[in-house]
């Protein structure tokens, strides 16, 4: 009878302390994931009050407020896409450093490649002409 009581107390003790030890670990790892995602997103969000700086690099009031709202959304399990869309709906495309690939931003994505290809074609022709004359 006494043994049973001891076992019961031991089981209760283990259950209580196991959750106490486990909880901070889970919570801490979740917090770390949120901070990691916050940093990744912040690097791609422009600080509108400091020229050409991301909110990750900036310590302005604006940057801190935006980080605060991103953290709230991350804690609500919102996706990165949701957060970018939310910021875009409030501040426009300009707030993002990397514009998303869509019809109105297609030129921005294609233009660098077009310039490189046309540059290569131009210099190849020049080189061939130069070689022919030589």
């Amino acid at each position: 009878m006494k043994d049973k009581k001891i076992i019961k107390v031991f089981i209760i003790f283990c259950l209580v302390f196991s959750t106490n030890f486990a909880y901070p670990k889970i919570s801490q790892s979740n917090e770390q994931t949120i901070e990691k995602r916050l940093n990744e997103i912040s690097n791609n969000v422009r600080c509108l009050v400091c020229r050409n700086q991301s909110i990750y690099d900036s310590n302005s009031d604006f940057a801190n407020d935006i980080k605060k709202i991103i953290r709230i959304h991350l804690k609500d399990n919102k996706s990165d896409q949701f957060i970018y869309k939310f910021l875009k709906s409030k501040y426009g495309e300009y707030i993002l450093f990397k514009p998303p690939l869509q019809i109105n931003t297609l030129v921005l994505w294609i233009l660098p490649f077009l310039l490189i290809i046309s540059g290569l074609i131009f210099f190849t022709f020049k080189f061939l002409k130069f070689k022919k004359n030589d």
Partner: protein
Amino acid sequence: MLIFAINLNISKEDKKIDQLKSPLINQNIPKKPIRLFQKNEIIELKNIYSNLYAINFFASWCLPCKIEASSIKLLSKKIPVFGVAFKDREENILDFLESYGNPYDKIGIDKDGLLGIEWGVYGIPETFIINKKGQIIYKYTGPLDIHELEKNIYGLIKNER
């Protein structure tokens, strides 16, 4: 020439940052409720205003807000202006209103700046004009002056009435 071109580009960029085109123009006002200053009351703007009105985000610690105070007073003679005290302390708001006058129909508070984000605010003072349908039809970032009132705002108010 190169330095001149770079300077020109920088000043253009500054202007672009000052008056970014807001995606909220022609959209309904954000739904986030607002806590009224010195009152234990949370309101929704659409339940208070059914006609043209303005919203002005201000703070006692913001110098341009002091500069624009006389223009906000002029605007308040044409349409009601709802003030939002942005990240400010109660005693400082009272001091500000005492020193520069209170042109506001009602005042709400945005303690943590999250209401400002809903409105796309990035540099106070910022002023919005809302039409009868509850849509944002105008936004101005920076201190309002008589020039802006006469050039754009008065005309807009006249057209919307």
